[in-house]
Structure formats: C-alpha cells, structure tokens
C-alpha cells in the first residue's frame, strides 16, 4: 500500500483548527509516536494554527513525513499572508496576554517540538516550521 507523505490543509476557520489537529493526531499515531509525543505535536499545531488564523488572517498547514538518521518524523509548516511580525524576539517571549488566551502560542509551541523555525517580517506574512521525530 502506498502512503501519502505530504499534503496541505486550509486554516480559514476555527473548524479548520480542529481538523488540523485531528490530522496531526492521526499522522503521529501512524508514525508510532508515544502518547506524550503525539499530544505535544498536536498541541503545538493547535497553537500555531490558531496564530495563523487569528493573527495572520488565515492560511494553510503543510505536512511532510520525513526520515532522518533512520528516525521518522513529522514536519508541519504554518503559512499565512498576514501582517507579519515586526519584532520576532518579542513575539517569542513568554507572556500570556493579548486577548483570547494567546501569548504562550509561539514560545510554548517551540518547547513542544524538536525543531522550530520562524520566518516573518512586517507586511510579509509568517511561516513557522516545526519538526518532531521519534
């Protein structure tokens, strides 16, 4: 049986956030992640999907299965074309403020994964890439 190793889902509504984290749950289960590792990746994806929707005005989540040093993992890329983040350093700081329970989103998600990369500039949207492997 051939397996899909990548894809993309939209992040245009709150329901899309639920669908995205359910997809991440299924993918991490397929990869044989432990329950704790599944939960960490699902939670990180929920934070980043919400960021893309609320701060980025919607976007998409791409997913790729990868193998590195004989380890299998999942890469997720969250892309939005929103206003971007002018001060990345500040945005990565802990602090749970801005309105609806955000503020731990970026900094918290970074702690839940093995690899975290963010690219953004004012007016240029935001792309966050996370990876977690077994």
């Amino acid at each position, binding site marked *: 049986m051939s397996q899909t190793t990548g894809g993309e889902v939209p992040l245009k509504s709150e329901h899309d956030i639920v669908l995205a984290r359910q997809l991440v749950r299924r993918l991490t289960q397929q990869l044989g992640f432990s329950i704790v590792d599944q939960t960490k990746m699902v*939670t990180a994806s929920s934070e980043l999907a919400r960021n893309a929707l609320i701060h980025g005005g919607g976007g998409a989540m791409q997913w790729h299965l990868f193998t590195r040093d004989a380890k299998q993992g999942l890469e997720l890329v969250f892309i939005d074309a929103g206003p971007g983040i002018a001060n990345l350093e500040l945005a990565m700081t802990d602090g749970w403020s801005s309105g609806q329970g955000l503020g731990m989103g970026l900094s918290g998600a970074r702690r839940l994964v093995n690899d975290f990369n963010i690219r953004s500039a004012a007016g240029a949207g935001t792309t966050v890439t996370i990876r977690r492997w077994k």
Partner: protein
Amino acid sequence: MDRIPILRMGEFLLVTIQVDMQDQLALRLQEDLTAAIERHSSKGVLIDISALEMVDSFIGRMISDISGMGRILGAETIVTGMQPAVAITLVELGLSLPGIATALDVERGMEVLRAKIRNGADHVADDGR
C-alpha cells in the same frame, strides 16, 4: 450551534467535555456556566476533562477564567480527569494552571468540592463570632 450540557446536582454543576472543542464552543461554555452559577446559586463546579486529548493555551485559559469567574460568583471549581500526557504537555507549554483545583477522577473531585464548601461555611461561621 452546539452547546456543552451543564448538569445540575443540588448545589453543584457538572460538566463533561467530550468533544474536541472549537474556540467558540469553549467561550460559550464559559458564558453558560457563569449564567448557571448565578441562576442556581451554585456552590461548586466540576469540569471533567478525561475525554480531552489535548489542552492548548486557549482551553487552558478558558479553564482558568471559569475558575476565577466562579470564585467571584461564590462557586469553587475543580477540574478532574486530566490525562497524564495532557498534564505533561500543558506544563511544557508553560501553563501550570495556578490556582486551579484538580482531582484524578469525578468521585474524588466531588469529595474535594464538598470539603471545600464545608470549610468555606466554617470560615463564615468563625468570622461571624
């Protein structure tokens, strides 16, 4: 739109979160619960999250807020049944839910709620002397 049912049992309100919640559903639960506390003069709220496979900062914030709002309205809140993987993830995310009472399951949660309310009543009596 969907609603999470709130059950009334004497002076307590019981909520079991069984679904993967959209943000709006969580906000609606918060509104419904505070309204129910007021309507029934409830003394305690028990929220069972044993079916939740994930608690992110939004849901964590909602639980904190319900607890805080409940306290102002005179009701104690307890959260029961959090899965270990969820607890580990929450703390790493940076949310340790300070000030939120928790118990392993509904039965123990009810005991804690009853004890809290008894103690609260004693304090009132003490102050009145």
